[in-house]
């Protein structure tokens, strides 16, 4: 039986050093080539889940497992996870003053190549230009400093640019749609779709609060997370149901389940 791309088994997690659990037993599976949407109200644990998968040092697993291609990745550092094929598009990307996007990306691309096998400068440049065009970003972006002075839309496009250049096997998009106007949303979605079309093995975990982005990036599966647990899973029509009815109907069920 083929291994799952990502498997969360009864995952419990919290902020490192704190008592309260944010994730209280999450079960979730993403297979190669699938797009999964994870929706939930504020405080449900969506972002925590993303950070746990990426290996953020500020969070810790208290029970359960995170398996990537069948292997438990809990001991792996964030850079090791990235090189293994995990990518997270940040909700709030950091600024790196004085470091150009081109420089930053080339370092990241070479980080997953063996020493002596760095990407050819011209090849890199060509690829970068191609991806910049895909995301409707002007060539001048390449020499701007990472996220410095970027608008919200530019930051999010920069995240997808990185996704495009690093070619991961799993992309976790943490509220990529937040703060975006409709035009930026379309561009970002177009970018993600182009990547999933190009690589049919790429798995996507799209974390969002609103259904809107799912009109552009069609999910294969939709999950709802509430109070640290996945309470409902279904197909794309589940997203529509949430849009029409809100989260309330699920809240009652969730309340009934958790003691």
């Amino acid at each position, binding site marked *: 039986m083929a291994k799952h791309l990502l498997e969360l088994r009864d995952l419990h997690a919290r902020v490192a050093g704190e008592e309260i659990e944010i994730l209280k037993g999450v079960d979730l599976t993403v297979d190669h080539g699938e797009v999964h949407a994870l929706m939930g109200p504020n405080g449900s644990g969506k972002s925590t889940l993303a950070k746990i998968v990426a290996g953020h040092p*500020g969070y810790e697993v208290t029970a359960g497992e995170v398996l990537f291609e069948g292997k438990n990745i809990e001991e792996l550092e964030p*850079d090791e996870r990235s090189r293994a094929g995990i990518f997270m598009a*940040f909700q709030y990307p*950091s600024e790196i003053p004085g470091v150009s996007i081109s420089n930053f990306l080339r*370092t*990241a691309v070479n*980080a997953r190549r063996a020493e002596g096998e760095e990407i050819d400068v011209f090849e890199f440049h060509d690829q970068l230009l191609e991806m910049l065009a895909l995301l409707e970003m002007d060539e001048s972006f390449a020499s701007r400093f990472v996220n410095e002075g970027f608008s919200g839309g530019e930051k999010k496009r920069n995240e997808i640019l990185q996704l495009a250049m690093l070619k991961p096997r799993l992309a976790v998009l943490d509220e990529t749609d937040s703060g975006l106007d409709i035009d930026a949303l379309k561009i970002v979605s177009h970018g993600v779709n182009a990547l999933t079309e190009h690589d049919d093995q790429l798995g996507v975990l799209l974390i969002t609060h609103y259904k809107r982005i799912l009109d552009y990036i069609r999910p294969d599966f939709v999950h709802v997370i509430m109070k640290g647990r996945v309470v409902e899973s279904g197909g794309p029509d589940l997203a529509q149901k949430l849009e029409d009815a809100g989260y309330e109907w699920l809240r009652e069920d969730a309340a009934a389940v958790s003691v």
Partner: protein
Amino acid sequence: MPHDPTVAEIGLDEYKYGFITEDKPVFKAQPGLSEEIVRQISAHKDEPEWMLEFRLKALEIYYSKPMPKWGGDLNQLEATLDEIYFYLKPQEKMERSWDDVPQEIKDTFEKLGIPEAERKALAGVGAQYESEMVYHSLKEQWEEQGVIFDSIEDGLRNHPELFREHFATVVPPRDNKFAALNSAVWSGGSFVYIPKGVEVEIPLQAYFRVNTEKMGQFERTLIIVDEGAQAHYIEGCTAPTYSSDSFHSGVIEILVKKDARFRYTTIQNWSHNMYNLVTQRAMVHEAATMEWLDGNLGSKLTMKYPSCFLMGEGAHGSILSIAYASDGQHQDTGGKVVHVAPNTTSQITSKSISRGTGRSSYRGQCKVYKGAVGAKSNVECDALLLDEDSRTDTYPYIEIDENRSTIGHEATVSKVGEEQLFYLMSRGISEEEAMAMVVRGFIEPIAKELPLEYAIELNRLIELEMEGSVG
């Protein structure tokens, strides 16, 4: 077959650069400083009487001044002054074995890809070096343009009037204790003259090395940029220069005359046992521009404050300084700007990085004399702390005697954020590489002013410094 005995006999056959020195009695070197040593230095260089008098007077001044109590810790240096050789000629070979060179220095050479031939030289093994400048490059076209780029000794010898007119006018011996010392025992350095209106496109470069046990280095450089001329001088070397317990006390005097433009770039990476105390000063005349680019990575203690005295109306001076201090190092650096004439402008940008127990301080002065109407000065000093124990201090001195002037000062201190680090690591970049990246980004505004090969070297050095800095 008969062979020429002369070369072998006088021991010049191993002399790499093929200089033929005059036949001089071999100078007997002794440690410590005395009037006798100063006389011997002057005699050996065949100097005119006025220079000998100058040296002797400077020696008196040196003895009369106390050791400075500010800046870094000079107590250990004071103790070793009696053991230092203040002057050595090439024939005094002090052999040291390659085996004695610390492994980490050898590793650094390896990592930087320094050619085998240079490694021993840089490590001070097999002495081919001495106080006098044996290496500088001068292109034919410069000669044609009338550009003078000589050793300081040749400057004095070949251009006596020009030399005497300007020598010690920018940094007199009385200026500070180490300027006095340098004035007494100076040896080696550059003499540069750029004639009126001449533009020298390619940077003039000179580097020298400190090589032998207990060897002090007292280079003296005098640069005169005549009206409307333009040039760039680079001094220093990014590769680590090794010796044991050494002391480097240089004086650099620059005159930038009306409408001229000049930039002086230094990158030093002296080994971590070196005391590096340098007086660098430029007199900037009407509508002229002076730029100091100062990179301090090595040494045990560096005290260096490149200065611009803005003497003529509309003069502009800037100092861009990078300092990196890691375990056991203290960089006390910054700059000085003195506004004497009206409508003068200045800019000091200082970026200092402290790692481990390293201490990186900014020490700067901005002085505006009465009458310097319309003077504008801006100081920006940024510090980056990489570890819990790292330390940075800021000592700004601001004296404004003209209230029709604009002075700005900004200072920031930051550390590498956890979120920043996580962001970079989540792209597959190792923690060390991520730190190096943040540091490179931090110094970018200054590094981009460096000639390309220096910038590349600087980046590589930082990468090496970062290795082992985490965990």
